[in-house]
């Protein structure tokens, strides 16, 4: 970085344009004043400096932290809305900062784009420098080879040009780039170190591009599926769906799968007793409607991959099988109903809606307890254990208008109670139905019956398509290769000079490790020992022999 000149006279930076006023007088500049062009150049140099790139990279890492700590709308919209309900103070602030969708936020994109620009601005000029260095000839031999830290010399009666030719051959065989100039041979190797360095920088760019492609053309979605049911990769089948800004639904791979079976191991002892571990989902899937059916074992951190799309198992829970018959005896609702866990012991919350019940619509809202227990302190049920040792469904009944027929979108996990009335007992207390598996209760006022027929499980599945994934992976691998190259390839220079000395030839050799820290003495010994007419043991680091 050259500091901008603050004197109106003297050296001007290259490309500087005098801004003269109307009289042709150069206006006197205050210290630190820059014209637009200088300011732009200064900004560009700042942006493309290595330091800036590193700072931006660090910022990118920091910026990714809120994305993993704060629930993201794109990952789990339900969890996010719950978190927002629980934190009414923070939510508006976080909304403003875009913390619920970090990776789409303006500031995250800004960091990303600045890093890209910085890297490109850094790489392009350097590429030319590297390119020239790669093609350059070994530098001329220094005048005093003996001044170098690692040098050796000997005298021999082999002719000078023969020694030179021999030295060149020896060095070429050791894969040095060799140049003979006058009385000396210059040799250099390790040019690929520069290439490794360049490859590393380029690869970082490739990784960034790969991730950007995934973010722009990919999508992330989630769905809750009851075990025994299936999914086909169509937009209608997702519970939540966050497409990239350039995503097209025609890019979706036409796969489908069925959840055949699901098992959980519960820990019954030790400090983590009551926790579930080792979930395991058995799938059958087809990559397209006409492909053969295959099976797959889906586990946490063991996703199913179809083309660019990955299917992850990220959660599980219970779906009580509930049947509602209405006042006319019609089965108006049946099947597994997804209840969402509210704690570690899988006490779960859910709603059942029967909008087609007659004489009036029926909505149920309540909890499912896999192992029910009663707390005298709170006077309510809780779940003592996550497995279904003693399951109970406990719900309140709402009748009237569930608000499903006016077209307003509605979550299947929430009841719109605005147009309903809660069923109460004669004394005004809420009418609560507590059902164990197999129970049926007849509702008052000839509304119908509710049965709790069984329990099924559900899986929360996350599906994401990230087209640039392989590009990013290739970038990471290349970056590693480049980094290793720039770390372990030793750039060395070796010079051999011959001089007539009495009736013999004085041979001087020296070596230099340009990366520092390399021990070239050994290397030099080997080379010298191979030179024509070299003594058995080169007389290293000594003044020339008095023969």
């Amino acid at each position: 970085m050259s500091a901008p000149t603050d004197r109106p006279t003297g050296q001007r930076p290259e490309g500087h344009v005098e801004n003269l006023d109307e009289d042709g007088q150069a206006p006197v500049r205050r210290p630190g004043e820059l014209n637009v062009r200088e300011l732009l150049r200064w900004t560009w140099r700042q942006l493309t400096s290595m330091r800036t790139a590193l700072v931006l990279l660090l910022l990118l890492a920091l910026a990714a932290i809120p994305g993993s700590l704060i629930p993201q709308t794109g990952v789990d919209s339900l969890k996010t809305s719950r978190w927002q309900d629980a934190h009414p103070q923070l939510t508006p602030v976080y909304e403003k900062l875009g913390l619920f969708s970090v990776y789409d936020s303006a500031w995250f994109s800004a960091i990303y784009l600045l890093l890209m620009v910085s890297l490109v601005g850094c790489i392009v000029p350097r590429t030319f420098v590297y390119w020239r260095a790669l093609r350059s000839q070994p530098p001329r031999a220094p005048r005093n080879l003996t001044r170098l830290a690692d040098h050796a010399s000997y005298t021999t009666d082999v002719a000078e040009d023969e020694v030179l030719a021999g030295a060149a051959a020896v060095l070429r065989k050791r894969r040095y780039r060799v140049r003979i100039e006058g009385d000396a041979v210059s040799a250099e190797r390790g040019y690929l170190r520069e290439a490794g360095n360049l490859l590393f920088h380029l690869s970082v760019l490739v990784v960034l591009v790969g991730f950007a492609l995934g973010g722009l053309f990919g999508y992330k979605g989630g769905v809750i599926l009851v075990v025994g049911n299936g999914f086909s990769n169509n937009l209608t089948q997702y519970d939540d769906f966050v497409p990239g800004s350039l995503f097209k639904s025609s890019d979706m791979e036409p796969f489908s799968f069925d959840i055949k079976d699901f098992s959980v191991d519960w820990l019954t002892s030790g400090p983590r007793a009551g926790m579930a571990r080792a979930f395991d989902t058995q799938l059958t899937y087809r990559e397209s409607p006409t492909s053969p059916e295959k099976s797959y074992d889906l586990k946490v951190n063991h996703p199913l991959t179809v083309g660019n799309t990955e299917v992850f198992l990220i959660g599980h829970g219970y779906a009580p099988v509930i049947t509602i018959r209405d006042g006319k005896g019609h089965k108006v609702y049946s099947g597994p109903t997804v209840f969402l866990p509210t704690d570690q012991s899988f006490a779960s919350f859910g709603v059942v809606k029967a909008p087609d019940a007659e004489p009036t619509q029926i909505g149920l809202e309540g909890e499912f307890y896999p192992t029910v227990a009663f707390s005298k302190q709170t006077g309510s049920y809780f779940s003592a254990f996550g497995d279904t040792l003693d399951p109970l469904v406990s719900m309140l009944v709402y009748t009237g208008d569930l608000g499903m027929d006016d077209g307003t979108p509605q979550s299947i996990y929430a009841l719109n109670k605005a147009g309903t009335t809660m069923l109460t007992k004669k004394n005004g207390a809420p009418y609560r139905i507590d059902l164990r598996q197999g129970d049926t209760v007849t509702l008052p006022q000839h509304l119908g019956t509710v049965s709790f027929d069984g329990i099924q499980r559900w899986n929360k599945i996350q599906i994401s398509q990230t087209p640039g994934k392989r590009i990013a992976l290739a970038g990471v691998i290349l970056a590693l290769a480049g980094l290793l190259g720039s770390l372990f390839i030793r750039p060395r220079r070796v010079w051999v000079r011959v001089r007539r000395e009495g009736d013999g030839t004085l041979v001087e050799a020296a070596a230099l490790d340009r990366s520092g820290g390399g021990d070239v003495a050994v290397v030099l010994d080997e080379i010298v020992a191979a030179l024509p007419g070299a003594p058995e043991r080169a007389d290293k680091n000594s003044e020339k022999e008095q023969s």
Partner: protein
Amino acid sequence: MTGDGSVTEVAPSDRGDVVGLTGSDLDGQDVDIAAFHGKPVVVVVWGSWCTPCRAEAPDVVAAANELGDKAQFLGINIRDASTDQAKGFVRTFDVPYPSVFSPKGDALLAFRGTLTPNSIPSFVVLDGEGRVAASIIGELPSTQTLVDLVGDVDTSGKVSADG
């Protein structure tokens, strides 16, 4: 996922392959869309849980009744936990046409690469040969929209058959 009710039509020369769709209806009877070749088929994507579907149901049923024998309506019911919910919907709105019961939505993959009904509600109109001719993605603007669209598809098919 909901659409905005946008209508798309495909010129007869640009229509793709014949859509093949088979499945079971709400009573477990086999349905094959090929049986309806010879007149336009209106495919209705719906679910009893889908509030916009419920809101527009009277308009859709009115269109089906108005078109009568001029077109065949076929529902695709998705994401209902059982046929009971779907049958309740049919009872409530007096739905006159059959529906394929497809809780996992695989029936929709048949339309891939054409005018994918990628939102619920949505409609796809097939011409007399069983090729995708038009679609409405999102809630039905009005009964007339659907009636006119079927009329367009029907006449375009006849023109192409004559010329």
